[in-house]
């Protein structure tokens, strides 16, 4: 059955949105942005003329790459390219706007992109802050039962004459207790590990990397249950350079936890154009050897890096989204059963995160356009959250 994605509204953030978490009541969104952590009240009526102004509630010392709301204890988890994990207690009274001048940002924290516009800044200090990686946290996931946080890292350094990656100097897939921040597991994978996900039952964690490696671990035992490589997401730049580029940028388990999906883009003709095919692949990860079960149908795919996967609560459909380099869509709804494309949207921005509302009727897409050149000494906003009505037609 075809699905229509009807755009409801768009909310601007000063800089790019790299990850998003939305409260189950649909009234509050939390965004991991290049310049900090933002909280934004979402209007009940998308047609309201007064657009909400996001409030920056904290910062890391680099881009914030991951964010997750723990509704059970009203906490907000964030990770960053500075390698730190922070946990904020949202029940703590936010510093009032009068405290703005006294709010202390971390040293070297990014300056807001729109200083002239001066968005609201209400500092909410973290109750937990720890450096958990020596390099970026590329991505972070919160287990559905809200017991675990997983963060992935790893710097791509030349490890051989052909520029295949150097082995990691530290474990780069880490699982933490979501409440205390205590490290539970530390796994190793070839850098750079670019995405991570828990399964719906919070039993497994999976990660994917630059080279197309995928792995699944059992959380209870810490045992690696499967590892395999798909060569279809990684380019070795024959045209311009002899190095690796691309890889897997999103992983997600199927609703029954039996399949693992990977997303990214196919081999690029020109690595510097980003013109690989929009791509997802589905693997039966419990099979030995792991079996590729499905992948995007070739003629339904355009070009561009895909960065996010999300399931409708019913499990019938999933969304893959990212950047549009060529083609008709950069967010598309697929049938879980057949893999057929059922609906699509062309958003005009690179999408980093897709999330569904609990009833599956609203799709949240967050990301960014290209950063504009400054105008009158300030940089226009370029981060966005868009809401879409999901309709069966």
């Amino acid at each position: 059955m075809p699905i229509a994605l009807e755009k409801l509204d768009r909310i601007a953030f000063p800089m790019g949105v790299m990850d998003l978490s939305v409260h189950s009541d649909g009234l509050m969104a939390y965004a991991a942005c290049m310049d900090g952590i933002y909280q934004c009240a979402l209007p009940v009526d998308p047609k309201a003329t007064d657009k909400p102004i996001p409030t920056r509630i904290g910062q890391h010392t680099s881009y914030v790459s991951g964010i997750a709301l723990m509704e059970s204890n009203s906490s907000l988890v964030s990770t960053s390219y500075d390698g730190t994990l922070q946990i904020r207690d949202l029940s703590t009274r936010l510093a009032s706007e009068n405290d703005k001048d006294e709010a202390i940002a971390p040293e070297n924290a990014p300056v807001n992109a729109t200083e002239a516009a001066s968005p609201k800044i209400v500092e909410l200090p973290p109750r937990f802050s720890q450096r958990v990686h020596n390099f970026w946290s590329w991505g972070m996931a919160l287990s559905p039962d809200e017991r675990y946080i997983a963060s992935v890292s790893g710097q791509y350094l030349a490890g051989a004459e052909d520029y295949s990656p150097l082995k990691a100097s530290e474990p780069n897939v880490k699982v933490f207790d979501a409440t205390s921040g205590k490290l539970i597991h530390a796994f190793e994978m070839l850098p750079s590990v670019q995405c991570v996900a828990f399964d719906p039952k919070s039993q497994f964690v999976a990660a994917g990397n630059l080279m197309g490696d995928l792995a699944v671990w059992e959380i209870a035992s810490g045992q690696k249950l499967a590892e395999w490589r798909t060569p279809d997401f990684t380019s070795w730049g024959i045209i311009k350079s002899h190095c690796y580029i691309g890889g897997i940028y999103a992983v997600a388990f199927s609703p029954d936890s039996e399949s693992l999906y990977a997303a990214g883009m196919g081999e690029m003709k020109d690595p510097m154009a980003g013109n690989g095919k929009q791509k997802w692949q589905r693997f039966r990860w419990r099979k030995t050897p792991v079996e590729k079960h499905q992948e995007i149908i070739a003629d339904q795919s355009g070009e561009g890096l895909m960065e996010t996967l999300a399931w409708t609560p019913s499990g019938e459909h999933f969304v893959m989204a990212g950047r549009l380099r060529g083609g008709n869509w950069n967010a598309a709804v697929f049938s879980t059963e057949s893999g057929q494309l059922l609906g699509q949207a062309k958003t005009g921005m690179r999408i980093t995160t897709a999330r569904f509302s609990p009833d599956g009727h609203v799709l949240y897409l967050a990301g960014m356009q290209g950063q504009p050149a400054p105008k009158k000494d300030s940089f226009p906003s370029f981060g966005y959250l868009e809401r879409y009505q999901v309709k069966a037609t």
Partner: protein
Amino acid sequence: MQNNHRLDTMLNAPCGSVDHRLHRRLFLQGSLAGAASVASFQSLFSVPAFADSARAQGKRCILLWLCGAPSQFETWDPKPSRPTGGPFASIPTSIPGVHISELMPKTASIMDKLTVVRSMSTEPSEHFQAIDMLTRGEPPRPPFTRPLMGSVLAKQLGQLDSPVPQFVLLDPCPEGNEFKAFKAANWAGWLGAEYGPVRFGGKYKLENVNLPNDLSATDHSDREALRSFLSKKFANDHKAASVQSYNSVFERVRGLMQAAPLFDLNALPQADRDRYGPGTFGMHALLARHLVENGSTFVMVANGMPWDCHVLNHETHQMLVPETDRIVFHLINDLADRRMLDDTLVLIMGEFGRTPWLNEARGRDHYPKAWSMAMAGCGLKPGVVYGSTDENGVEVSDRPLDQRRLFATIYRALGLDPHVTYDLPDFPTFNRVEKDAAPVAELLA
């Protein structure tokens, strides 16, 4: 072996004279066929002998060509905490108050040996035009072809009678879009093909430089004497200028036969290869050091054009910059340890910089308006950071430097008059650097 394109360029000189066409066939039958069968002189010429000669030679230059154009924000001119700054922090260097990208910790420790320009400002914003200008010093003026800096230095500082190639291009990538087109161009221009580069790396290998088993060195020597005699007689009888060019190329082929062991990467000490490698760029930078130690005048090291990060800029710079950091650190230190840095100019640059703002594909695009490059060694004042950009890196805020003044500074550092006029009959007047552009005194020792 010298590439065929260069030979073709030489043999098909723009004048199109009957003289050139007449001798092409003879030349091919003679020198190239000869080159395929000539002897290996490896046993007659040792590497130490080259090195002794090189030490007496004087000045030389290594160009680490960061083709595609690196981001100044992720290298020499970080803007931490600014909207344009990107995700990487900056770190202090051995020059008090000067910070560079955290991706360059080794180089930060030897900044007092480097000379960094943070205020490069040029015009071409497309690769081919910018590569051409930043390697020749001037935009094109058809139909005249200005020689590359490497060709100028090979002529002015090199020893043409040396068996070691004076101008070497090390680059493993056969492709490279605009860089590929540039590599197929006429490099030596009006100086003549003998000042063009010997290419090595990737598919470019020194082939046909070994003596067949059934040909003794004595026989080979006899054949060369006969070839030389016939060439001289031909030249005298026909008064053909082209013969001199052909003989120059033949001499280079012979030189390559003798110098071939210098290009054997596997013969370089494993400890050195471990320090510079494992990537090809590092291995070729090590080879560049080895070549200038043994008599080459100008070695250009490139690795395709990986720096052209319109897509995934930070994700690619996280690998490329640390590799360059390691290479620069070891190269500068090695040259200093060998007491060669005073006579060897090291240039570290691309053709322009990258935009302060990120595009939608996580990339930075071309930006010639305000960018950075670095130098070290011969004739330069170490520990200098010249010029600056504004807080977001959008504009040059202090002492902008264009390619003419950069070239004037480079030539002056190498002891050459930047403003000398070329002696080119029937050509317009050309100078080594045009418009009387002045060298930057603050950069010169």
